[in-house]
């Protein structure tokens, strides 16, 4: 009887503990603006950046984590650990990095690290409590990588919000993302210029209940 009571208390403690450490992941293909979004959130609520951004793909090659980010909106507070993940890709060619001006040796190292980063990002899917899928709204959303990420999150019953990033660009087409993933909330933002970011914070409360 005492043991059962102890287990009951431990269960409540664990649930409470877990609730206080929500893991909010940022996933997406390379160069969609995941780190740019992570930086925007961290800058807004912690006053510091999370990681380096670059026009060269696979700048983020390791999981980056910021603990206890607290967002406030409409008088409510939401705390979470923010996890920025390497971009998921099916191909990594070091020669593509050379074309962007990186020397051969560094390009090969970058490619090797990028492959490990993709594997790590996939493995971390199981740890997430909610995920922001960041897509480049100027690109075709029907890319298989996007479908695979979202399919895996759905299979794990992880709440998802799709963010169509780079809506400040002329080529942005949010409607196409909405048609590709009609089951999900799709919000257009510009992580770089802050367009619609206030709305994003409001929606975050609905995602992480």
């Amino acid at each position, binding site marked *: 009887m005492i043991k059962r009571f102890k287990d009951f208390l431990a269960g409540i403690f664990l649930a409470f503990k877990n609730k206080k450490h929500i893991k909010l992941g940022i996933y997406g293909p390379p160069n969609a603006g995941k780190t740019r979004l992570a930086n925007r959130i961290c800058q807004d609520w912690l006053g510091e950046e999370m990681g380096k951004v670059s026009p060269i793909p696979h700048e983020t090659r390791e999981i980056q984590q910021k603990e206890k980010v607290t967002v406030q909106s409409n008088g409510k507070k939401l705390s979470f650990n923010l996890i920025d993940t390497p971009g998921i890709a099916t191909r990594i*060619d070091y020669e593509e990095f050379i074309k962007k001006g990186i020397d051969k040796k560094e390009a090969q190292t970058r490619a090797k690290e990028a492959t*490990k980063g993709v*594997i790590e990002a*996939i493995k971390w*899917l199981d740890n997430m409590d909610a995920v922001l899928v960041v897509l480049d709204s100027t690109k075709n959303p*029907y890319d298989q*990588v996007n*479908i695979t990420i979202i*399919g*895996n999150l759905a299979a794990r019953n992880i709440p998802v919000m799709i963010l169509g990033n780079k809506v400040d660009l002329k080529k942005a087409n949010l409607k196409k993302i909405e048609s590709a993933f009609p089951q999900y909330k799709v919000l257009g933002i510009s992580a770089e210029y802050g367009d619609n970011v206030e709305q994003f914070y409001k929606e975050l409360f609905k995602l992480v209940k």
Partner: protein
Amino acid sequence: MPLTIQYVPFEEVSDLDSERKIQKLIRIVKQNKLVLMEGTLTSQEEADLIEETMETIDSKFKGVEITSFNPTEKNSRQIQDKLKQKFMEMIWGRRRGLTIIGPANIVREIRKDPNRIQLFLSSRGR
């Protein structure tokens, strides 16, 4: 050099567990062939395929380009549509639809929208 398309019928992979199925597909792709598989992979299998591909990448093998196409699968919010899809899957397995996997040194890009798939081939790898 001509591009070889290898057709993989559903029966050839349906009895394999996910690991063997993925290894088989990657083995074909590494021979610089384009896989045309009857049916689709589960989302977990797709993630496993990406992981396995990343493990395999080296100076010669740059990865894969992949797409799948299932005209009967709808991205619907409706519960009845989802139930219908699950029921079809129970009867047919994942036989319906097609999966295309190509080596990244030959297939530069696969562009897909709801009704068509375009393959852009690289002249470099051929």
